[in-house]
């Protein structure tokens, strides 16, 4: 299936969870200051393991950066 991670189109196996995607993308899931939105809605860290991605899912993985 196709998903969009931080604005980039990617292939992911059907049944991929959010936690699996984050690990596969090389992000450090344990790192503090990370938050994830799936189709525009916040997914709490506690739900990353169970959140299943659907074809066309839009995922944003954000972190705190210098700014503002």
């Amino acid at each position, binding site marked *: 299936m196709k998903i969009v991670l931080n604005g980039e189109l990617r292939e992911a196996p059907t049944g991929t969870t959010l936690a699996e995607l984050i690990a596969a993308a090389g992000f450090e899931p344990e790192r503090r*200051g990370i938050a994830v939105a799936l189709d525009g809605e916040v997914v709490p860290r506690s739900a990353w393991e169970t959140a299943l991605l659907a074809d066309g899912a839009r995922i944003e993985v954000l972190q705190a950066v210098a*700014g503002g």
Partner: protein
Amino acid sequence: MSEPFELAGRAWHSRLILGTGGFGSLEAMERALVASGTEIVTVALRRIQPGADSPLDLIERLGLTVLPNTAGCYTAHDAVQTARLAREALATDWIKLEVIGDERTLLPDPIGLLEAAETLVGEGFTVLPYTSDDLILARRLEALGCAAVMPLGAPIGSGGGIRNPANIALIVERAEVPVILDAGIGTASDAALAMELGCAGVLLASAVSRAEDPEAMARAMRLAVEAGHLAHAAGRIPRKPYAVASTPPEGAPSL
């Protein structure tokens, strides 16, 4: 020095809040944060870059309180979603709320700002809104339950100082929540003026981070905020059109 600064139910020693944008390196940021004496620093949320430096470790090591912001949000929807993500990422209910109305000036969108503030206050956020120097808007934000109002002195990053000191003074006079001058500060005298006008604090970033010597400017800002606050509390003499002799005329010799 003077009495502590009450903000969002806590007492702070420093009345200077620093932004983290614009520093050449994390080392430069660290030296400036230390020199500024700040206790609260604001950070933005952006797409993660694997291996990229995050200012969080530094902020935590220095024992500072992190204030996430919604910098770069142009709609109430984006600002609300960014605030929710920031709460998840940083485990804080605090949010420096920015809803920008125009790319060229980065001036706030007052309509979007009110809408986002109402939603976020309703969700239990401690909302610190970046706002226009407009009394009525400030009072509307206060009435919605914002923990402070943060009027701009001049556009973000412009270093334009405080373009309309009378408006800031009006907001200070009428607001019951702390007024924090946010944006426009260019140099130390601007920060001192904000405090002399009665602001409870000053939030600035570029004036320090883009100064030739950020560490020295951070110290200058610290002193300016303290000096301005003391001067405001001390009560300045009234302005008069003519001189008032400081030496009594009595006892002057006839020569």
